[in-house]
């Protein structure tokens, strides 16, 4: 509908506040200075990260490795490859994160990638509820 009426879609938090960067791993402690160490919603996020979330991360890691890119680049490339998406709003904290994020522009996502991602994170579904849901 947005495409039909030429309405721009600008998703915020495409990396899900850092959850989709690969910095949070199954059974691993939180990396120092990462958002979950200081965000007041930490307990909320952690309690919502189940096996489905980590299975998706494993897939993202595999796909990123095959493309010789980073997980954030893969996720951002996937986001802007969606036909109705105009531009994705990134939120880097450091120059290194910004430099990494901008590399997403050159990453190509194909139908096979989309199908494999959709199988673990079905369109219209959510792996965790947001605090305001």
């Amino acid at each position, binding site marked *: 509908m947005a495409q039909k009426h*030429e*309405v*721009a879609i*600008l998703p*915020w938090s495409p990396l899900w506040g850092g959850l989709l960067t690969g910095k949070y791993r199954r059974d691993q402690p939180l990396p120092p200075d990462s958002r979950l160490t200081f965000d007041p919603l930490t307990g909320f996020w952690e309690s919502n990260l189940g096996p489905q979330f980590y299975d998706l991360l494993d897939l993202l890691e595999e796909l990123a490795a095959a493309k010789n890119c980073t997980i954030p680049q893969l996720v*951002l490339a996937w986001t*802007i490859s969606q036909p109705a998406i*105009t*531009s*994705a*709003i*990134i*939120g*880097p*904290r*450091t*120059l290194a994160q*910004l*430099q990494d*994020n*901008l590399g*997403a*522009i050159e990453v190509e996502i194909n139908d096979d990638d989309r199908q494999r991602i959709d199988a673990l994170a079905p369109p219209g579904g959510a792996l965790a509820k947001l605090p305001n849901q």
Partner: protein
Amino acid sequence: MKFTSLGRTGMQVSRLCLGGMMFGQRTNETDSAQMINYALDQGINFIDTSNL
């Protein structure tokens, strides 16, 4: 950088938009300025100033 139309506005915006949520909060002024300048140099022409 790659660009696309912003709805019907006639404006061309970069496919990544620099969100400023961290600027002035977790990222100090000096580092924020450096990041903004870097983004502009890389072709970003679209900044979300956030509602902080």
